[in-house]
């Protein structure tokens, strides 16, 4: 009976999170840190990172007459992506589940004083999804298939400074702050998965559809006085007015395949590969209703793969320990590495423990993610240097099995 129940949870969770985006770009690293801890989505319950901590450092390029000598850091934020799900057996071979997810999200909030403030001070993409899904399992338990709909809501907030050459004092002055804030916009897509379980093996595949979210919002321009009256008057005359803005953020499709085995008693081993169609993200363009193109950045991202390998060891009937490693390609060509989102190839390691007794499940995972140093190699049009990032994801999940 316990076995049966667990299977249902696994399948539902798989449908809900198996195809979720992983890591690179502006994905949230993992829908299920425990899944990573165990090496994949298939055997995972749908636990998620409870909190994410970033450490980021920018180091200016010593051969660049702008960024040389500069350093920059993210403000310290603790990200708490909302995540919850419920799974309800419908009787027969059907199960219904609904999840509240945070498949994407990004915040690069630079701590001033910050040299790249003309490019970005704070970039914030917030996303939350609701995902109802239905799963069917063959009576033998060998085959399962499921699918669902994802309703996604998001908003974008971008903050930067305008700097100008100031002929009155021969300086470069901060003359204005730009605050771009969209309203919440929504879209829908679909996801599906299959799972095949011959003997002690599990083989599965999952897919999550792509989506464009079209945002509209407002640009608020706030003049920053320089203290030089004639210059400030010229600036005031030249600044764009507050106005409505529009932008579109493309989100990728995500496809995963994986294989797992329980051939060794008390051990699960898993390997999976995920492909994300980040090549949909060609450019970031923000159009103002009055001023035309306000921001236009070529992005030209590439599709990426990520690879995960993990193990779950059942120490005794109530305790599990989990280990995992992962490698995640970044989608950004070097020219697109910017303060807005300095991405890099990532390598990570996880350690987790699980406790289950009766209907209760408790999982805790520590996930350390190291971004490789990413240099713009002198190719950036606004800020050359090297970004060093590390992230730390801590998960604590409480579950109750009905």
């Amino acid at each position, binding site marked *: 009976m316990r076995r049966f129940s667990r299977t249902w949870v696994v399948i539902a969770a798989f449908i809900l999170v198996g195809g979720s985006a992983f890591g690179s770009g502006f994905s949230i690293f993992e829908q299920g840190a425990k899944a990573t801890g165990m090496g994949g989505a298939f055997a995972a319950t749908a636990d998620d990172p409870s909190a994410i901590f970033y450490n980021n450092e920018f180091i200016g390029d010593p051969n660049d007459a702008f960024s040389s000598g500069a350093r920059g850091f993210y403000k310290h934020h603790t990200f708490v992506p909302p995540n919850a799900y419920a799974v309800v057996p419908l009787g027969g071979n059907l199960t219904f589940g609904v999840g509240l997810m945070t498949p994407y999200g990004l915040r690069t909030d630079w701590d001033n004083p910050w040299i790249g403030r003309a490019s970005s001070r704070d970039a914030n993409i917030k996303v939350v999804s609701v995902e109802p899904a239905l799963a069917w399992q063959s009576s033998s338990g060998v085959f399962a298939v499921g699918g669902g709909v994802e309703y996604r809501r998001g908003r974008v907030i971008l903050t930067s*400074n305008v700097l100008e050459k100031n002929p009155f004092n021969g300086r470069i002055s901060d003359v204005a702050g730009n605050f771009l804030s969209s309203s919440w916009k929504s879209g829908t897509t679909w996801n599906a998965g299959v799972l095949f379980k011959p003997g002690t093996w599990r083989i599965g595949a999952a897919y999550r559809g792509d989506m464009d979210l079209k945002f509209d919002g407002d640009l608020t321009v706030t003049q920053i006085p*320089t203290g030089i*009256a004639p210059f400030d008057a010229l600036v005031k005359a030249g600044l764009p007015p507050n106005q409505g803005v529009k932008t579109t953020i493309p989100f990728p499709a995500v496809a995963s395949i994986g294989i797992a085995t329980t051939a060794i008693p008390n051990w699960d081993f898993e390997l999976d590969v995920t492909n994300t169609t980040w090549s949909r993200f060609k450019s970031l363009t923000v159009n103002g209703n009055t001023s035309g193109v306000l921001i236009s950045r070529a992005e030209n991202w590439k599709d990426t793969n990520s690879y995960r390998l993990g193990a779950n060891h059942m120490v005794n009937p109530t305790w599990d320990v989990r280990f995992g490693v992962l490698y995640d390609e970044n989608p950004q060509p070097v020219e697109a590495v910017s303060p807005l989102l300095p991405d890099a190839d990532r390598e990570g390691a996880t350690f987790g423990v699980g406790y289950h007794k009766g209907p209760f499940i408790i999982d805790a995972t520590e996930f350390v993610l190291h971004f490789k140093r990413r240099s713009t190699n002198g190719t950036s049009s606004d800020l050359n240097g090297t970004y060093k990032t590390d992230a730390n994801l801590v998960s604590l999940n409480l579950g109750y099995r009905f």
Partner: protein
Amino acid sequence: MRNNSFARIAAVVLLAFAVAVPSFAARGAADFTRFVAIGDSISAGFGAGSLNERHQVFSPPAIIAQQVGIALCTPAASATDNCFALPLISFPGLPRGEIVLGVSSTGALAPVVVPGAGAPEMAGFGRPYNNLAVPGFTVGAALTLTGAEAFSGLGQVVLRGLGSEIDQAIKLNPTFVMVWLGANDVLGSVSLGDPSTLPSTAAFTQQYGAVLAKLVAGAPNAGMVVGTLPTDFRSLPLTSTLPPVVFDSNFQPVLAGGNPIPLIFLPAGSTTPAPVPTGSVVLLSALPKIQTGVGMPPQLKAVPPFSALPNVGTPLTDADVITPTELTTFQTRVAEFNAAITAAASANNIPIVDIKGFYDRIASSFTTPIIVGPFSFNRAFATGGLFAMDGTHFSDIGYILFANEYIKAINAAYGTHIPLASITKAFQNNDPDTAKAVGITMTPEVAAQMISIFNSVTTTAPPPPARRRSVH
């Protein structure tokens, strides 16, 4: 065994040699323990019409010193302090107040002179300054003038009668010497619009050779670096802003019947005004005169809006104009000077900075802007960001970029990794959120001072660039 170790040691030594010695065997080493600069107004960090501490700290030698980790001396420093000493002069500077962009009494934006004068702040400093560059000095002046001469201008402040630039540099027992000399041998004549005052190539070659020979003899182990001279007249707002024809407020030609109207001038030795030849340079310093009608042909006296100008029909002087013939003479001569600099430096294994190339890039910066980070610079007067309000000397940003040319050459020649200086040193950082940033913060006091300057302007005409070669 013995032979074997000898061979190993020899191999290691050879390897070290191969790795450490750059392809160009630059003399001495990039040891900045005692870093000394000789030169002219550019090396001194001269601003528009004025040498003062606001720009002296941006002088290329001061920038380089900071990039190699040497602090600038404060006015309270003593001779034994290991700091880079500048002959600091309080704002608004000497020999007169700085020219800044301001608001004239008529309410128009115009170059205005900050009233008053500054004073030397380190006159009693107990050793020669590390930056011995004197505005206005030619190569010959750097060799001979000691600052004791009444006509040595700012040399009195920088050299204090203690010896020539070269002699004082050697007194400091320098480990590294930066040289940029020769611009005034040319620029003085340019300001006068008269190539006949140029030194001969033979004289320049002899004097430049003498400077390097004296430095090499006096500081045989010091590293050194020199730079070439600009040859392109389009590289300075002084010589490239005004067209040789009647122009509007945007310096664009006014057309009559589809054709531009040549300005008129009085050629040297002539008493009859003549049209300024096509291809001539009209110096920016003539602008105030032209704004009163000077240089405009007499037939415009009856044509509005020129009829409102009092001096229409009065010709410009020969000094206001550099004709194509004179331009050719200048350019040929400066090319010969550069050949002399290159020959003298090469003979002494002294690396050469391609400052000519730097000015060439500035000359073409209207078509190919100089991009630094997110900022774009060009040679435009006042708004281009590279030049001070005299159209001749660099802005602080221009000085930083000039210093970086030296740093790149030093790195290439000596195999060093001195980081380039950032133009963020010239940020105002007026945003309260960013006021903590590295660089200059405009304090409320300074801001108030700037505003009071703009509000109390009495001088409306931009003063012409100095005509005396000894005092820029």
